[in-house]
């Protein structure tokens, strides 16, 4: 059951992350790429790479049958789905198994149990884990929904039963808005998940989004690796994550971790997974859902615990026992992750595809860049906007924030707009520094923010004029660098001059 060659059924930074783990484990890595992705970094990093179809994901990265076929043809014995695409698709996990490929993730039954959000809520309820008040079954019909919403109490969240990633989700403040929100949410759910089923939850006021990482081996051993706080979001999508949460003390951590492990055990979970909670200002926590895959923000847990989650996924999928228990998992310091997206935060987070003309990536002490791009790479309009994740570690939260601010200031991306300037503002914000986080943070902070704040206005004018002046050939910019050393670096004798 040892894994020798893994097909990575993904693209971008997470494909690169998985390929790196394979390389370090001495496991072969096979990439797949769509027509838009021949130049992608994961193609260059892999040992082998095969075309999988046209650029739209439905015809390539979501084409389960084709992917299984390539895996077999390349002689892979396992498939890592990353996150997104087919990562939480139980049918794909089954197709892998039928083809004799190890699916690096949980068993199909666990994916199904947690993929239906109302079924997951029922499991949590049976275990006595607190839930956000709401329905335990999908709601059907406007009348029944209205009644259920009234019973829960407004504001309510309308959520897709097969949801995830903020899709098919609507906040409803008053009964008048309910019918319209239902229509939109059902439509989104149908097109995103192929299923229009909806359930309701009470909307908490400015809750924190806190999630617990679990690892479970095939022998029934389950541990948790502490929590991540993911409250800084835009459009219900995470932008900044950290571990541990500044809000969670040792006692709450133990209760959250214990609840997460019980849910994983009840679902007969194996491999890495994440149990998400909402936590209110009083420290009450409520089970939200379980993600049956690696999370985008897994690196903050890695830097704090020292445990390589992708390496653990490979080991567990290969049948190895974890080999350690809860007391062996010890955190040190604080880690923060910022998502570097090709979006313009000053223009409503509008996506910004294009060619990365210049790229300088920060590094140095305790700075990690998990990236899927390089200088000269063209960001495609076909896939999501995540270019890279910048992750830092510090002995405490203040040190980690200072380090992140330093790293963001070093990060230069020329040619596409990115979230970097907004992330810099978040790191500098007194509420963020004080740990006053909630999922409403960005909406609360955003209104104050303009693009240029004027401190460097003159410098910007100078740079712009200089660029134009030089383009017109008036200054012939700087001395050209001295020509590189043009002789072979070989001491000793050179032959007779030709």
């Amino acid at each position: 059951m040892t894994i020798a060659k893994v097909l990575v059924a993904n693209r971008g930074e997470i494909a690169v992350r998985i390929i790196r783990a394979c390389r370090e484990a001495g496991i072969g890595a096979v990439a797949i790429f769509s027509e838009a992705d021949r130049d992608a970094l994961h193609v260059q990093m892999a040992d082998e790479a095969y075309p999988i179809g046209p650029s739209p994901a439905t015809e390539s990265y979501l084409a389960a049958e084709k992917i299984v076929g390539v895996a077999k043809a390349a002689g892979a014995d396992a498939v890592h789905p990353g996150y997104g695409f087919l990562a939480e698709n139980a049918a794909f996990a089954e197709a892998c198994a039928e083809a004799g490929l190890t699916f690096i993730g949980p068993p199909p039954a666990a994916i199904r149990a947690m993929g239906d959000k109302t079924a997951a809520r029922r499991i949590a309820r049976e275990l006595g884990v607190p839930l956000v008040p709401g329905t335990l079954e999908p709601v059907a019909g406007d009348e029944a929904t209205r009644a259920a919403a009234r019973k829960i109490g407004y504001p309510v969240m309308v959520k897709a039963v097969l949801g995830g990633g903020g899709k098919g989700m609507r906040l409803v403040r008053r009964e008048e808005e309910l019918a319209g929100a239902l229509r939109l949410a059902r439509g989104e759910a149908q097109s995103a998940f192929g299923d229009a089923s909806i359930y309701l939850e009470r909307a908490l006021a400015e809750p924190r989004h806190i999630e617990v990482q679990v690892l479970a081996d095939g022998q029934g051993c389950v541990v948790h690796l502490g929590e991540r706080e993911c409250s800084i979001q835009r459009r219900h999508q995470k932008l900044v994550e950290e571990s541990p949460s500044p809000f969670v003390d040792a006692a709450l951590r133990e209760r959250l971790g214990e609840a997460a492990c019980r849910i994983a055990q009840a679902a007969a979970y194996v491999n890495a997974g994440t149990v998400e909670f909402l936590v209110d200002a009083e420290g009450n926590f409520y089970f939200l859902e379980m993600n049956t895959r690696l999370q985008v923000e897994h690196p903050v847990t890695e830097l704090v615990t020292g445990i390589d989650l992708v390496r653990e996924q490979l080991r567990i999928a290969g049948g190895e026992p974890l080999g350690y228990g809860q007391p062996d998992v010890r955190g040190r310091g604080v880690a923060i992750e910022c998502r570097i997206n090709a979006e313009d935060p000053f223009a409503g987070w509008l996506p910004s595809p294009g060619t990365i003309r210049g790229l300088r990536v920060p590094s140095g002490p305790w700075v990690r860049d998990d990236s899927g791009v390089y200088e000269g790479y063209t960001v495609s309009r076909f896939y999501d906007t995540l270019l890279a994740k910048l992750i830092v570690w510090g002995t405490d939260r203040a040190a980690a924030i200072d380090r992140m601010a330093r790293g963001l200031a070093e990060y230069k991306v020329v040619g596409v707009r990115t979230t970097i300037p907004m992330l810099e503002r978040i790191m500098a914000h007194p509420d963020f520094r004080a740990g006053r986080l909630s999922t409403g943070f960005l909406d609360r902070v955003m209104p104050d923010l303009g693009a240029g704040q004027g401190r460097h206005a003159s410098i910007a004018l100078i740079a712009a004029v200089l660029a134009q002046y030089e383009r017109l050939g008036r200054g012939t910019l700087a001395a050209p660098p001295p020509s590189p050393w043009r002789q072979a670096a070989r001491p000793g004798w050179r032959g007779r001059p030709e």
Partner: protein
Amino acid sequence: MKFVATAGDRAQTVEISGGRGQYRVTIGEQVWEVDARPTPQGIYSLLIGGVSYVADVTEREDVAIVEVGGEIYAVKVEEATRYVIRTRGGPVAGPGPQTLVAPLPGRITHVAVKTGDRVRAGDMLLVIEAMKMENEFKASAAGTVSEVRVQAGQPVNAGDVLLVIA
């Protein structure tokens, strides 16, 4: 050499001389001695009075997007003579028809208005899906929709005219 640099609503005359890394820049009354080094990637190292800046310059159509110290500026730079010719006729007469242009390629997922509708600033006009995000476009001023050139489900390219408000 004289330029006019416009950032936001403000146009300023900027004079520049020198070359090969050493420049003198005059903005209004203020004179700056600038030691500048470019890189092919559009990343400039500037030393001004000992202070070190790294500025990114991305040139787009007629505007330079400059990023420096976490701030972003869009600066339109014109040779002074051209600026004078362009603006000699006085300011352009009041607001005419306005055109919503697709700023990026994607797919129209929703159109919220039809020809003849009156809209106010902030009203939602349409939604473009791109890079797995739904991007809402809202009216920035009041008017009447005179033309709707797209419908839901339709793919669009950057630069396509989507709708016109008179």
